[in-house]
């Protein structure tokens, strides 16, 4: 009898590993920046280039830094989620417009909506490099002390928002 059930048992064993594996993303290269201070920067703002935006402006606040670009297809995918999140007023979202042309970026936001309090222009991608951006989009959650608490590689998903990012924000706000 056992020999007829054994294949099923083996399959169930493999399926369990597959299920656990599914929850993990093999691309999640552990970021050395997690729980370290977010690198400082000072960049000109996208809509008002005469003004600047720097990390220190955000001291004492919990905020999201979303790396985006008008040339990025995946950014389109996560954009509605960001707009919805911005409307909820849970957390201010700041954009890091990465290796983009200013006119393209502004037009892109006009077409698809602007979830950002403001976006900073990282034309050469230097700040992105400091943050260890492997590609676009990426999103960083930074706490009151300027420490990176979470990094989303690739587009933000509903699941990541509901299960990780929003709970973490709530926890951080309670801590203060």
């Amino acid at each position, binding site marked *: 009898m056992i020999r007829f059930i054994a294949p099923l048992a083996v399959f169930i064993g493999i399926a369990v590993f597959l299920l656990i594996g599914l929850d993990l993303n093999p691309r999640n290269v552990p970021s*050395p920046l997690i729980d370290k201070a977010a690198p400082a920067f000072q960049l000109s703002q996208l809509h008002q280039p005469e003004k600047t935006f720097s990390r220190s402006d955000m001291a004492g606040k919990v905020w999201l830094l979303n790396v985006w670009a008008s040339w*990025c*297809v995946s950014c389109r995918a996560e954009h509605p989620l960001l707009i919805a999140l911005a409307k909820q007023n849970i957390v201010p979202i700041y954009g890091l417009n*990465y290796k983009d042309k200013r006119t393209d970026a502004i037009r892109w936001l006009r*077409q698809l909506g602007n979830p950002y309090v403001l976006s900073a222009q990282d034309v050469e991608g230097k700040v992105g*490099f400091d943050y*260890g951006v*492997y*590609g676009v989009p990426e999103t960083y959650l930074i706490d009151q002390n300027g420490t990176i608490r979470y990094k989303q590689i690739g587009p933000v998903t509903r699941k990541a928002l509901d299960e990780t990012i929003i709970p973490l924000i709530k926890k951080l706000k309670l801590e203060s």
Partner: protein
Amino acid sequence: MKPRHKRLAFIVGGLVAIAIAATLVLKALEGNLAYFFSPSDIVANKAPVDHTMRLGGLVKKGTVKREGLTVRFDVTDNAETVSVSYTGILPDLFQEGQGVVAQGRMRSDGVFHAEEVLAKHDETYMPPEVAAALEKAEQANSSVAQPAL
């Protein structure tokens, strides 16, 4: 031998064969695992010296130097940096500032000697240079999109 003994011998023999095969396979597997380390791991001495492993990170800008066929470059995870030396032809997608995975050994001179360099490129999650196409598309978008609105 009685049929029952024959059957028993068969089963025992089979089990022994399976055990030997499993041991062999696991031994081979163990010997051929390449662990993945980041530059921080290596600087923190977490990685064994002179053992095959994989090193992953970004190619630091301005560090790629060629000397004949040997290429030296730094791989960084933005926290720490490790020098890599590789002799041979780099893959097409190898670029400064881009992700890279090198397979090789850490030598006592503190340089990672790569036997193989892999540069990967991902479809959805793509480096900007790969997606330059959409720039063109986006530029003309407004004119196309307006009537539809």
